[in-house]
């Protein structure tokens, strides 16, 4: 049985070099012409199975959104492999991607930027069906769109309105309806609730979970909010500086984090009422720049337990306990 989504050694780099003259630098008495490369994703592996919710957490700049955009080929991967249902789509061009987009759909973070302001809601939702070359007639497509709209909590009167006439939460509902219009098997949700107020956030999270139970698709759920990820995920992956540092079943990771960064992240999370029962781990300093990755482990600059090997050798994500994987030398001892 193939995994619905499989990512192997995915790498993504961006050239952010400035103009010609700014790139000329004198170093050690010699003129150099240097490139600035952001190492956004550095060899990430994970799989998502059918009906599963995989949560990807990490702080800003850790590469989680880049992974999402690379999976649906908004960015071309620099290295690695992306397989959807066993099919290697890494080198697919725009045309070949069209049928794949019927399997993988995306919900974006900013509900104000992800809807075209000049298109009416009905057209926004029917567009993916029309492009997919669905064997449906115009009337059927329209009917299906209406059904979807009422399913996500919008009414018939909303069909002919433009995006600016809606609030943030309603727009996110439109975005969800658009993603579901082609009946995808995997929905990538990139921070779908972080732009929303708390009460609206709960509405959208409940809706997303209800829809998942109803349609049975999988989620790749990307967020920086630990309580959201805890609520929604079956399995989670924790990212740091473009590396996946720990993966495992959501409950296990939250109850018993193994990687020092996961421990620090979880103990830093503010919570209402009860706190997590983990030893507080304070880390100093800030995330290093992705322009120059530290040698060895990406976390060694802030890790209180770092030792020689952490600086010399980059740890690989390996499994030591069943279902769990961590990239940390400490756990080898």
């Amino acid at each position, binding site marked *: 049985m193939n995994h619905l989504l499989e990512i192997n050694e995915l790498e993504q780099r961006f050239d952010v070099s400035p103009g010609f003259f700014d790139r000329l630098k004198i170093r050690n008495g010699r003129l150099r012409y240097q490139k600035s490369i952001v190492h956004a994703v550095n060899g990430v592996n994970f799989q998502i199975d059918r009906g599963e919710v995989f949560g990807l957490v990490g*702080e800003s700049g850790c590469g989680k959104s880049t992974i999402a955009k690379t999976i649906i080929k908004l960015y071309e991967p620099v290295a690695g492999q992306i397989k959807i249902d066993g099919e290697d789509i890494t080198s697919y061009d725009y045309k070949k991607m069209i049928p794949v987009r019927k399997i993988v759909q995306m919900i974006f973070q900013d509900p104000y930027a992800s809807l075209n302001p000049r298109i009416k809601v009905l057209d926004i939702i029917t567009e993916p069906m029309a492009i997919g070359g669905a064997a449906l007639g115009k009337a059927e497509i329209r009917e299906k769109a209406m059904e979807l709209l009422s399913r996500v909590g919008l009414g018939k009167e909303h069909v002919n309105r433009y995006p600016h006439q809606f609030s943030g939460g309603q727009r996110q509902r439109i975005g969800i309806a658009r993603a579901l219009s082609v009946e995808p098997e995997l929905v990538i949700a990139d921070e779908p609730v972080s732009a929303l107020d*708390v009460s609206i956030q709960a509405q959208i999270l409940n809706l997303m979970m209800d829809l998942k139970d109803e349609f049975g698709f999988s989620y790749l759920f990307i967020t920086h909010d630990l309580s959201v990820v805890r609520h929604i995920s079956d399995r989670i992956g924790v990212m740091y500086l473009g590396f996946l540092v720990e993966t495992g079943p959501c409950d296990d990771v939250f109850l018993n984090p193994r990687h020092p960064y996961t421990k620090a992240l979880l103990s830093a999370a503010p919570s209402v009422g009860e706190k997590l029962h983990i030893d507080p781990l304070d880390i100093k300093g800030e995330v290093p720049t992705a322009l120059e990755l530290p040698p060895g482990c990406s976390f060694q600059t802030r890790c209180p337990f770092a030792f020689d090997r952490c600086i010399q050798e980059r740890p690989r994500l390996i499994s030591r306990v069943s279902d769990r994987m961590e990239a940390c030398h400490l756990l080898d001892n």
Partner: protein
Amino acid sequence: MTDTLLHIRGLKTYFHTFAGVIKAVDGVDFSVDEGEILGVVGESGCGKSVVGFSIMGLTEPPGRIESGEIRFNGVNLLDQDERKMRKIRGQEIAMIFQDPMTSLNPLYTIQDQMEEVMKLHSDMSAEQRKKRCMELLAEVGISQPETRLKNYPHQFSGGMRQRVIIAIALASNPKLVIADEPTTALDVTIQSQILKLMKRLVREHRTAMILITHDLAVVSEMTDKIIVMYCGRIVEKGTRDDIISRCRHPYTLGLLGSIPKLTSRQKRLLQISGMVPNIMNLPPGCSFAPRCDYVRDRCRDMPPELVDLEPGHKAACYYPVER
């Protein structure tokens, strides 16, 4: 020990726009004691930031303070002219803003910006000022303060800038610090560093603080007292425990239920249905009535007053939730 530092009564701040009058703050009463941390929570547009700006006297047209009283140390700030307000601002009341990227001037060094407060409010010599700047930077956890003082804001990361802003706010030992969403723009691990730093400094200097935020989790970890706002009014106020574990107003209950828990998994989140009403066209009764699960006829006719449930715990609701 518990002297009232700030006392606000019947504060109304309205914005007169062409589309109509926005009652951003509509009759708010509260007080802050010396050395106390007060949290003001609410969703966007509830008027929580306008409360902060009103205290600082920073409301700009079309915004206007219609009525009310802001007594700080016994003086009504609304009677003070601009010259007197400038004396109070920065020296007695300091403010920390949300966005660490825009609240520092990019054209001046950190030293220039830190010294500005001291130049305005004290007669320290240049040497004393520099020494004080270095002390402050060390206090907020910035290493190599001497070299860092000569840096410009763009040479600092977001968390570092927020540290600098905190240092500036504390430069003249103010009695009250108003922090408007101080950690919203920061990452989780940095947020916890900054919150711990703020709490430690506020306690050490015995400064009072008003922490304005949408994040109930942050408020529940930081504050002594909490005010919950909805559509320009206070719907519930009390001690931290009153609000977090014994809240009575349906809105507070809904807000707390909307937040997923870190410790356990729920099947579904408790949700508040509908949306915040248009603030220019509020319902005649309780503003929360259209979304409330416990609504009855009376709620739709007359807005409820904020009444005592227990000593110190108030809610603006005719039928507070029994728990």
